[in-house]
């Protein structure tokens, strides 16, 4: 699954090569709240039309970074430019070219979908007829046209999040910030939102920065990922390269369930060039270690040729989880939500330092 999705998106990139223009430039950006450093001297660049992910546990500084870049919070130190404009000195120029999908829904429950979009759209300098047309198009795009005149308060979480995303697109932003865009969504809505993000990136040529604490999400969506922990960028590269950090080479580990497993089939697998080792775990499960780009395809092809009946394949590629563990020396604290509330840092901070 994983590798397939990656190929699709990399093919799309291949058709229209990324321009190398820098869209976002972050230099030593720092934010301190009452002595606590939420974001600590981070620097990175995001190229035009890239999907850039900030991956990290809750409280790592992702949201603060997004808030600084979207001009909602003033940095304590450091600078950043978006499309060449400084986020502090030319904040209104920056605001014109960005859209923000915040972790919280930016929608008024008592207004209808259309009223909401019109209200936010009018805050930008968009001619009336253009805005009306855009509202209709965007609603159509996320299949909400039917609910145009319904109050947002009556919407399901999935519908609300779709609204939340298209709201950020009203001004056709060059850069779209998404803070935990799939948080709290059911699997179907999650997939829909992810597909929509990719579509926006592809079709509107929008540069995207998203934050997530979900490894899979970062892996599936992002061209490059910055792993952020304790307010610092611990690693920054493409998902593939990040994974190579762990294994050090292009190893593929497959776990297969083959009911009609024979001695002959195992020998055949072992004879393949790319295969380093085959271990039989029981009467139907084998584990294959292989190297090389085409390892996966080669193995599948030869299994087919031998008429092996494959019930399941598990690709034991190193995951971003392994990367995170490797880099920070600890596991991601996904389960316990000790998200730090803005404004109450002093009380909840010390816990974070316990390793």
């Amino acid at each position, binding site marked *: 699954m994983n590798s397939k999705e990656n190929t699709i998106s990399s093919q799309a990139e291949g058709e229209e090569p990324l321009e190398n223009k820098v869209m976002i430039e972050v230099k030593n950006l720092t934010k301190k709240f009452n002595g606590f450093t939420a974001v600590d001297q981070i620097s990175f660049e995001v190229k035009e039309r890239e999907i850039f992910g900030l991956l990290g546990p809750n409280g790592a500084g992702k949201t603060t970074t997004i808030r600084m870049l*979207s*001009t*909602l*919070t*003033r940095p304590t130190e450091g600078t950043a430019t978006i499309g060449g404009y400084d986020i502090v000195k030319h904040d*209104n*120029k920056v*605001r*014109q070219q*960005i*859209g*923000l999908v*915040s*972790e*919280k*829904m*930016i*929608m*008024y429950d*008592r*207004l209808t979908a259309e*009223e909401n979009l019109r*209200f*936010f759209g*009018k*805050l*930008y*300098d968009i001619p009336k007829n253009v805005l009306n047309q855009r509202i209709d198009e965007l609603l159509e795009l996320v299949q909400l046209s039917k609910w145009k005149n319904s*109050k947002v308060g009556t919407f399901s979480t999935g519908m609300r999040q779709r609204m939340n995303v298209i*709201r950020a697109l009203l*001004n056709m932003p060059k850069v779209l910030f998404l803070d935990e865009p799939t948080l709290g969504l059911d699997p179907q809505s999650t997939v829909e939102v992810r597909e929509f993000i990719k579509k926006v990136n592809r079709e509107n040529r929008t540069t995207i920065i998203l934050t997530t604490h979900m490894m899979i999400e970062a892996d599936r969506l992002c061209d490059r990922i910055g792993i952020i922990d304790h307010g610092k960028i611990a690693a920054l590269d493409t998902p593939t390269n990040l994974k190579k950090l762990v294994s050090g080479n292009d190893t593929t580990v497959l776990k297969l369930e083959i009911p009609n497993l024979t001695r002959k089939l195992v020998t055949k697998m072992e004879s393949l060039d790319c295969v380093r080792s085959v271990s039989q775990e029981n009467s139907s499960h084998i584990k294959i270690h292989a190297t090389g780009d085409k390892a996966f395809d080669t193995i599948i092809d030869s299994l087919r040729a031998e008429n092996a009946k494959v019930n399941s394949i598990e690709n034991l590629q190193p995951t971003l989880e392994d990367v995170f563990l490797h880099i920070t020396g600890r596991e991601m604290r996904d389960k316990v939500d000790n998200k730090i509330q*803005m*404004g109450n840092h002093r009380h909840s901070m010390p816990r974070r330092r316990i390793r």
Partner: protein
Amino acid sequence: MGARTLISNSLRIAWKDLMELFRNRMGLVLLILMPIFMMVMVGFIYPSETSMKNVPIALVNEDAGFGGYNLSSTFITMLSRINDNASMMTLKDASSLEDVRGMIQAGDAEGGIIVSSDFTADIMGGQQGTITIVTDQSNPQMSAIIQAVLSEVFKQMGTALAQQNVAEQLNLDPSKALAVVEPFNVQVKGSVEGDFSYFDFIAPGIMAMTVMMSVMTGLPAAISHEREVGTLDGIMVAPINRLSVILGKTIAQMARGILQGVLILVLAMVLFGVTVHGNILLVFVLLLLGVFSFVGLGVVLTSFAKEQETAVMLMTTITFPMLFLSGVFFPIEQMPWFMQAVSKALPLTYVADALRKVMVLGADIPMLTNELAILIGFGTVMILIAVPVFKRAMTR
């Protein structure tokens, strides 16, 4: 261009806020009920002399009479006749002071009248006849009213009797006899014609207060609510002047406050016969000016409060004493000097005062220069402080 977009964005935000307000049925009902309650409560609860109606009063006639005469029955007939006209009280028969006390304790009577046993004898003997008014100390306001009303009634009855006696003995015209008995004719006249009640004093104050409260509690609640829910980010991330957020919210809250103010005015006029003697437009100008003087303070407090709960608590803490210190309910002159000093620092004092002058005295702008200058001055200073504070707070 800057000013125009600022205004149009402010109006957009105000419009959105009002839409939200009007879609909230429950909130809307409360919005209308609040001033009604306020008016009805203040209007009916505050006692005035005319409000003494059918109060149960125990009457004891201990008079033994003298030489076949019984003046007390004449007295009681007169009292009943006066009471029949005004129906101030319901007279109940009682036998003694103890009986009266018992009735007051049981709640059967609010007070008592005792005609002494020597009433006729004393008067016939050339002395003053004694009438005792018994009051209920557990209800000082009621007892004060009963005391005042009965004393006045008895005094008039005494005067009438004296007038009659003097006329007979000196063989004078009754009107001249009155001049002998009561040489002074005291008349009370207000600076404007017409009847005025406590309500005329309090109605302008309540109007000012409601509008102010609306803005003072509504503004921080509206801003911090949006901040908490996250929708404020949606506005702040747009390329608009930060000022339009305050301005828009203020316009919305002001509209809400003025709506309540109008409601109060209408109720006051319909239910309590309050008349506006001055220019009604000036009344609204003053209300707007009052809001202007408050907005800055509201914004500063909003900037300090991090979440809605704190904001509302902060506002209540500040507005509550303000109600009492600004002379809305009680005249400032009654207060000790330090409270008067605080009162003079509160803009609500001047709004209420100016409104009262316009509504009761029919004052015009030249008579209000002091108040107007203070309100404009206070508002300007507060806004000059508020704007940078707010801008800082928004990009924390």
